[in-house]
């Protein structure tokens, strides 16, 4: 496809038209950044499969991935790192998109599922189902119920819905603390003293993921991503403020509800397969926004950035010289926390938060 030529020939600048019905706005910089993010993700994925003791040599990688491997390499691709990588990509994408939607609705970088207790709530729900009724109820359903319960609790306790950013964040911290305590209770009640089990449920981990997990997050993405992209235009218009959005036909109230629902489903799906991994949904949209230097929600780019961030974090977790058994959630919490501190100090200095 040669979008730029076609744009020049048949429509206004920055718009790709397909026939006379479809017109997609395209920004050169966004495309470029998107391509770079995808490329980096590919590099990180290759590194994930080929680094370390069990890594597959670069020369063997193409055939191994297409199913031509045997012995140890096949085991690594099909059992060890393959599913883990796919789950990391899918979970990261889901978290990034979920964060972009929620941040856009609350018009606040801190209104992100991992800051306001959504992820912790989903984690508690997932822990209850996975540990107390294993096999009876799908974990993703438990995560969804937990996420919805956490959001209802936050919504009710702020007394002003999701509107006031300060109250939203503090209520979210409270709900997250309750959800984490509940998760700890469940894990101690069932697993007793297994420290690794506890940390996986509290922080989120990608160790020992299976193709089933990959399928779960894949289905969630397949359902939600098209809907989110359909909603994307309205979400971006919504950032102009309710009145203007209403005049432009974006139905701000309905858009908000839909975006929150999609965001909850995405987060719940991600938490169901990987646990409440911190700060990906906070940072991915922020990084996307800064890379494009633009305004707007950048849903697609936030999705790609989320995938890149989680694959990178998991690469670090797997190849870390300190201890390769630490769950990826600990790394994202440390790095994301420092980033959040930097973000806050900067915004506060400017007086814009």
């Amino acid at each position: 496809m040669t979008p730029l030529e076609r744009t020049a020939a048949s429509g206004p600048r920055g718009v790709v038209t397909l026939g006379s019905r479809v017109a997609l706005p395209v920004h050169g910089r966004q495309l470029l950044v998107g391509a770079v993010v995808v490329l980096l993700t590919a590099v990180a994925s290759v590194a994930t499969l080929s680094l370390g003791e069990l890594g597959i040599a670069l020369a063997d990688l193409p055939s191994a991935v297409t199913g031509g491997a045997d012995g140890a390499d096949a085991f690594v691709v099909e059992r060890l790192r393959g599913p883990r990588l796919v789950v990391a990509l899918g979970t990261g994408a889901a978290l990034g998109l979920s964060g972009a939607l929620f941040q856009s609705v609350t018009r606040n970088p801190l209104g992100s599922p991992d800051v306001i207790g959504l992820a912790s709530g989903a984690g508690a729900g997932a822990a209850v189902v996975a540990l107390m009724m294993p096999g009876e109820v799908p974990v993703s359903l438990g995560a969804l119920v937990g996420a919805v319960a956490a959001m209802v609790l936050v919504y009710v306790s702020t007394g002003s819905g999701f509107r006031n950013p300060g109250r939203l964040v503090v209520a979210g911290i409270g709900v997250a603390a309750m959800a984490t305590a509940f998760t700890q209770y469940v894990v101690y009640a069932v697993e007793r003293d297994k420290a690794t089990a506890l940390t996986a449920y509290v922080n989120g981990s990608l160790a020992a993921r299976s193709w089933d997990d990959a399928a779960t997050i894949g289905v969630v993405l397949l359902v939600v991503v098209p809907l989110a992209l359909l909603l994307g235009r309205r979400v971006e218009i919504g950032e102009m403020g309710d009145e203007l959005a209403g005049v432009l036909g974006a139905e701000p109230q309905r858009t908000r509800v839909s975006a929150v629902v999609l965001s909850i489903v995405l987060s719940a799906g991600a938490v169901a397969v990987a646990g409440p991994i911190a700060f990906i949904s906070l940072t991915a949209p922020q990084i996307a926004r800064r890379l494009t230097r633009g305004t707007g929600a950048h849903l697609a780019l936030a999705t790609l950035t989320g995938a890149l961030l989680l694959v990178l974090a998991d690469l670090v977790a797997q190849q870390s010289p300190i201890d390769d058994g630490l769950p990826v959630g600990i790394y994202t919490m440390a790095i994301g926390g420092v980033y959040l501190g930097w973000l806050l100090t900067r915004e506060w200095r400017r007086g814009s938060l």
Partner: protein
Amino acid sequence: MTTSIDTAPGGARTARTGTARRVFSLICALALLVLAVLASVMFGSKPTPFGDVWDVLRGDADTYVTTVVESRYPRTALGVLAGVTLAVAGTLMQGMTRNPLADPGLLGINAGASAGVVTATAYLGVSGQAATVWWALPGALLAGLVLHAVGSAGGGGSVVRLVLAGAVVSAVLAAYIQAVTLSKPRVFDSYRYWVVGALGGRDWDVLWSVLPFAAVGFVLALLLAPALNALALGDESASSLGANPALVRTAGLVSATLLCAAATAAVGPIAFVGLAVPHVARTLAGVDFRAQVVFSAVLGPSLLLLADVVGRVLLRPQELMVGVVTAFVGAPALLYAVRRMRGAA
């Protein structure tokens, strides 16, 4: 009144009925504390009826029951100490920052103290529980200073700003603590419960080693209470009343650091006691910080001990760490405080 602190309901009473009410409340609070101490001695994996506990106290119970009951003494004493220190630290911090959401756990001071302990244990070969409080002190102080630096960036800290800065400090430190404890499981075998906050499994040595720090911090908090009353009127009014806001805050930071480090070294990082108790204390004691400190010191241990009893009974014969229970029952206090926040904050 233009204080940012909630006044007691029905503030227009005469001083005498107010005092009578406060004395009555204090007596009730003390009775609650006695009940909490009794419950802490009676309940456990093997519940002991009150009659048996009474026999032990008089010294004519059989050896088995005596051993069971006496094994609960240290944890009860530690619960009292940690409850006092955390609640008083919370009162102090809420007064100093004029922020009703300040709490040693929520603001990351306890996380700093435990990061200090964890670092010393893992890398400096410090062993023995008595030495750890010395490492908790710099950790708590450092966390407090980072909190101050992040929270006051760009001038003027709002209520939410401090909590957010605390959440950031806590998150990063929690990641560090977990990374260290998970990668050195053998070193931290005996710290597993402490990391979450637990009263059990510690002995009298711990209590004696942290007691001096807690005592100094507590006395300092009492001495600061009148100045906090002045500070509640705003920095300018406080200056004109003869209090030096900068000095009060520095002394307050020292006192809070001592209290939090003592509590954390003894029982681990416990959140929300320092948030919930000062709110109740303020309702009962009114605006006077001297009374608030006293009420907090009585109510704090009651809450912590009762939470510990719940944790012991809930998963019998296993135990649930008290830190988990306080988070679950204390976080609603935060949600309640959020609803009462006025304006955009």
